[in-house]
């Protein structure tokens, strides 16, 4: 083969790969554009304000108020993060600051498994374990009757699902702290906990926040597991023991039947667009922070 030929091949490969990369990057824009085009119909018929803040949901009459679904999403996501954050933080601190390598070697595969289990499995677990527990044990303490399919159930299931993500992100963040810094603190007579809390956590605060935002965006979009335990009752939940109806569940549940009604389909696409936009912003922000800190894994 002549040199010219080889160089030509290299050039062609270069072009091809460049094209592929750019297509990949553009996919973000294409998804956004596609969803926007589809949701234009509903945006034309109803104002953005009514869509977001209206609580009337009557697709048959063309009334689309997303407030109950937004509230449901917010409740479930916040609850799950509130449950998962302390647990993940403590676990990650334990693994990086205390645990011996042997322990770490045993724990990491288990975390992997926790992360790898499909969401439908968590859904089954939620239906079999969490929901009955709430309905039989917890709820009777506070209210007369609850089916168990509640914000709380969804929050717990979702919380368990984001724990492995949070732990692995935190571990990544904590490992950017140089050993010397910990030793400087220890050498002053600080205990490990004082060092972990006042030096490690303080130094990595931006990273911790970015990881949390990332976890929130993951929790926002989780569909099947939440759908299985949230109760799917349209209404703004007033407490954790009430059912809710988050946006992903709405989309998943109504996809089949809406085809006959263009406006309904458009509304659901708008919901997807909303989800996409929020997740996009959260992801971008937290990734940029994490990249800057110098950890870019998982």
């Amino acid at each position, binding site marked *: 083969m002549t040199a010219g030929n080889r160089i030509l091949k290299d050039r062609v490969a270069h072009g091809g790969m460049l094209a592929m990369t750019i297509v990949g990057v553009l996919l973000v824009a294409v998804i956004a554009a596609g969803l926007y085009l589809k949701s234009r119909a509903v945006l034309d018929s109803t104002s953005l304000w009514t869509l977001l803040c209206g609580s009337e949901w009557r697709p048959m009459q063309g009334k689309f108020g997303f407030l109950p679904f937004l509230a449901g999403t917010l409740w479930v996501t916040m609850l799950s993060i509130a449950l998962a954050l302390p647990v993940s933080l403590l676990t990650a601190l334990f693994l990086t600051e205390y645990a011996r390598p042997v322990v770490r070697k045993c724990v990491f595969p288990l975390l992997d498994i926790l992360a790898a289990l499909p969401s439908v499995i968590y859904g089954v677990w939620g239906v079999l374990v969490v929901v009955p527990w709430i309905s039989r044990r917890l709820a009777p303490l506070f209210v007369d009757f609850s089916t168990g399919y509640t914000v709380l159930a969804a929050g717990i299931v979702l919380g368990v699902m984001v724990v492995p993500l949070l732990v692995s992100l935190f571990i990544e963040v904590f490992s950017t702290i140089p050993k010397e810094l910990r030793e400087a603190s220890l050498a002053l007579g*600080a205990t490990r906990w004082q060092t972990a809390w006042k030096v490690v956590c303080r130094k990595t605060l931006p990273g911790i926040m970015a990881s949390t935002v990332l976890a929130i965006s993951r929790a926002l979009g989780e569909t099947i597991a939440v759908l299985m335990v949230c109760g799917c009752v349209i209404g703004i939940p007033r407490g954790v023991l009430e059912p809710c109806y988050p946006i992903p569940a709405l989309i998943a549940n109504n996809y089949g039947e809406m085809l006959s009604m263009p406006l309904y389909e458009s509304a659901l696409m708008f919901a997807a667009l909303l989800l996409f936009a929020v997740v996009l912003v959260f992801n971008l922000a937290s990734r940029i922070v994490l990249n800057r800190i110098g950890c870019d894994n998982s």
Partner: protein
Amino acid sequence: MAIEVQKLNVYIKGNHILKDVSLTLPERQITCIIGPSGCGKSTLLRTLNRLIDTTEGVRVEGKVLVDGTDIIGSGAEIIELRRKIGLVSQRPCPLPMSIFENVAYGCRINKMFKHRRQLVYHVQRKLKEVGLFDEIKGRMRAPATRLSIGQQQRLCLARSLAVQPEYILADEATSALDPISSKTVEDLFVSFKQQYTIVMVTHTLHQALRIADNVVFMYLGEVIETGPASDVFNHPQHELTQRYLSGIFS
């Protein structure tokens, strides 16, 4: 107030790092530990305040007596011990806080003061002791990382002094600094020896010559020779010491 090391053996992941080290570090003097790199100087230093515990797969045997109590063994009050023994590391590593908070950190950790006024006064005094106060007056709230490397190292020194240690361990404390800062820090150590027992690992023989009262020469994990600086430098007994001092290997 002296440190006595008796038959100290340290293994890291099965490697014998310190072999039967026995020595006395006399009080209120500067003891320099010299020797070629990899000879276990830093390990020895890190054993003295039990920071060695944070190393993976470490096993320590023997005795280290600080003020007459053995610090190896699980019953030891490691936290109190570490307060009593200050450490200045090779690279200055300011904690992620302001200048003031860096010095105050140890005091807060050890709950040394009841009133904030006392704390502020204490921090200022320590910053004065290392000659940093005038340079940074009015910038006390600035992040410590804004300081120059030399200033950072003095800040770290002030931070160590703030918890009122009795001993200071310095691990090549001047090696990352420029010559002038290096000289400043060195002079500080000399001026501190009336109050503290100082143990210094150093990579430059000249520095040891300038400031050491006692010298410990280590080679491959063993203490080859130890004694007053004048003796060791002028009349080295061991052949290895002679060769090291004359610069045949370093």
